[in-house]
C-alpha cells in the first residue's frame, strides 16, 4: 500500500483537553492509566490520530489479532439497528507476526499505552499469538474470549469456563504484561465467567463484547448481514452492559473494564459507579471521531460535579445493592 499522506494541519472537533484539576488516574491490575478512557477493540485505529489528540487517552486497544491471516466475513458486514449497530466484520487479521512487524508500530507511536487484543479458534492459537507478541513492547494483552471454540463444537469460548481458564492461564504464563480478559455478554452467568478469568490469572476483565443479534430483510427473506447474525453495539446495549459490569464487579476482586454503549462523560460515571475501573468506547467513535478526547476533557468537570477529587473515588460506589427480581 503506497499512501502518501499530505502534511496538513490537524482538524479537530472544538473541545481540546486542558490541564486536569482532578486526579483522573486509575490502576488496572498493574497497569497505571492516566485516565479511565480507552477505545474498544475494533473501533479504533491509528488513523484517528488525524482527527483527535490520541495521546490523551488512558490507553489504546488494537483490533483483535489472530495467529494467522484471516479474511473476515462476507459483505454486508455492518448495518444500523435501533440506537445501535449490528456488525459481523468477522475479525480479519494480518496474523500475529505480520501485525508485530507492520501493525503494532502505528499504535505504539500514538503516545498512550497499547493494549493488544488477541483471539484464536483453538487454545493453541491464542497461545501462539501470545508467543509471537512476547516482548513486543505493548502494555497489556486483552484476550478476546468471544471467539467460537472450534475444538469444542463452536460455542463461544467463555461459555465453557474450563476451556477459557486453560486459554487464559496459558496466555498469562506467556506474558510479562497484565492480561485482560474480554467476556462476551452472558446475561445469566457473567459472574461465573469473570471468576474463571480471575482464577486463571487475569489482571482484569472487560465487560463486555457486542451482543449477538440478527436483522432480517423480509423482502429478500435474507439476513441483512452477509454472515447472518452479528453483534449489536452502541447505546441500545448500555443498560445491559451496565448490569453485567455491576454483576462482574460483585463477583471478582480484580478490576472490571466497562464497555457497551458509552458515548458521554455521564455514561463513564454510570459505569464507574456500577463498578468499572476503566471504560472502553466503541461504536460512539464512528459518528463522532473525536469523542473520546472530548470525554477525557470533560472528566475533571464530571469529578467536580459528582463531588470527588479523584475520579477513582467513584468506582463501585452504588449505595443501594440492586436486587434481581421478577
Amino acid at each position: 500500500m503506497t499512501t502518501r499522506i499530505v502534511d496538513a494541519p490537524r482538524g479537530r472537533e472544538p473541545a481540546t483537553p486542558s490541564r486536569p484539576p482532578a486526579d483522573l488516574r486509575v490502576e488496572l491490575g498493574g497497569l497505571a492509566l492516566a485516565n479511565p478512557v480507552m477505545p474498544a477493540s475494533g473501533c479504533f485505529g491509528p488513523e484517528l490520530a488525524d482527527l483527535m489528540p490520541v495521546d490523551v487517552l488512558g490507553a489504546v486497544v488494537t483490533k483483535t489479532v489472530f495467529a494467522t491471516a484471516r479474511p473476515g466475513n462476507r459483505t454486508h458486514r455492518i448495518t444500523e439497528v435501533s440506537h445501535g449497530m449490528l456488525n459481523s466484520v468477522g475479525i480479519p487479521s494480518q496474523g500475529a507476526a505480520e501485525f508485530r512487524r507492520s501493525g503494532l508500530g502505528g499504535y505504539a507511536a500514538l503516545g498512550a499505552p497499547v493494549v493488544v487484543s488477541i483471539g484464536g479458534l483453538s487454545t493453541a492459537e491464542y497461545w501462539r499469538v501470545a508467543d509471537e507478541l512476547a516482548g513486543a513492547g505493548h502494555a497489556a494483552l486483552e484476550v478476546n474470549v468471544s471467539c467460537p471454540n472450534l475444538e469444542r463444537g463452536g460455542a463461544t469460548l467463555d461459555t465453557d469456563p474450563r476451556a477459557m481458564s486453560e486459554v487464559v492461564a496459558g496466555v498469562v504464563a506467556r506474558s510479562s504484561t497484565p492480561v485482560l480478559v474480554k467476556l462476551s455478554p452472558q446475561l445469566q452467568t457473567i459472574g461465573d465467567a469473570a471468576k474463571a478469568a480471575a482464577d486463571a490469572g487475569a489482571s482484569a476483565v472487560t465487560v463486555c463484547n457486542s451482543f449477538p443479534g440478527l436483522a432480517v430483510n423480509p423482502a429478500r427473506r435474507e439476513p441483512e448481514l452477509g454472515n447472518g447474525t452479528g453483534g449489536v453495539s452502541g447505546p441500545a446495549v448500555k443498560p445491559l452492559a451496565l448490569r453485567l459490569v455491576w454483576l462482574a464487579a460483585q463477583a471478582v476482586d480484580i478490576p472490571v473494564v466497562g464497555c457497551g454503549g458509552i458515548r458521554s462523560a455521564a455514561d463513564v460515571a454510570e459505569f464507574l459507579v456500577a463498578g468499572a475501573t476503566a471504560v472502553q468506547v466503541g461504536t460512539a467513535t464512528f459518528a463522532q471521531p473525536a469523542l473520546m478526547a472530548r470525554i477525557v476533557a470533560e472528566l475533571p468537570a464530571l469529578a467536580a460535579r459528582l463531588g470527588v477529587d479523584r475520579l477513582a473515588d467513584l468506582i463501585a460506589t452504588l449505595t443501594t445493592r440492586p436486587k434481581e427480581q421478577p
Partner: protein
Amino acid sequence: MSGPAALGVLEGERPVPACERAEVLVSRPLSDRYRLLRFRSPVIAERARAGQFVMLAPVTESGPVLPRPMAIYTRDAAAGVVDIVYGVVGAGTTALSAVAAGETVVVTGPLGRGFAIHDDTERVLLLGRGVGICAMTTVAQDLADTPVRVAAVLSGRHDASIIGADVLRACRADVRRVTDADGTSGVPAVRERLHRAFDVDPPQQILTSGSERLTRLAAQLAARWRATAQVSIEAHMACGLGYCHGCAAGDGDGTREAPLVCRDGPVFRLRT
C-alpha cells in the same frame, strides 16, 4: 452494493481528513427523489480531490448511531463550502433530511481515494446512473479549466431522477441523458450510441458509478478503445477511515481481506 471482483487499487495522494461540526447552509429538496445539503467547511472544500467522500452525521442524541457516507458533489474552495446530494432511502437519510439550515452536522472528510486523471488524458467519458453521478461531478469541476474534454452519459429511471446535468454542463461537459422511461437507458442502446459517438476519437479514460450494468459496459468499452476504466463503488460503512473493516469490497480470497472501500476506494481501477 459490493463491486465486481476485478478491482485494482489505485495509487496516489490522499489528503489528511478533518472532523468538524459544520454549519449547514442549505438543506432542501432538489427533485422528488433527491436533496441537497450544503455545509461550510473550508478545510474539506480545499483538500477534497475529485471522487472523494465524507462521513456525515446529524448532531443528535436520538438520531442514527452511524454516520452516512456521501460523495462530495461539488466543493468551492474559495467560498469554503461543500455540497452533497442524496436520496432519502432509510432512517439515516431521513434524519439528515430533517437537519435545517443553521444547524450543524458532524462531518469527517475528505475520505478515500478519488478518481485519478492521467497526465496524457485528452478525453474522459463519465457513465453514471442515479445518485451515482454525484461521485463524478467533481471530476468535471477539476477538468473545467483544462483542455481535457469531458463527455457524460447520465442514466436514470426518468428525467427527474437524473441529477448533475446542470453542474456538468456548467463545467463544459458534453451531457447525454438516457432514461428507462423513454427506453434509451438499456445497455445495448447505450453501447450502440457510444460506439457511434466515440469510436472515431475515443476517450482515454472511462469513469463510472451507480450501476453494475454500466460498470460492465465501462469495462467492455475500455477494452474496445484501449482506455482505462475506474469505478466508484459503495459499501456499508462505520468509520470511513480504514480501521473498522466494515466496508470490504468483496469476500476476500481465503486468507486475505478484499480491499476496503473507504480506504482503498471508493474509486477502483477496473481490470478489463
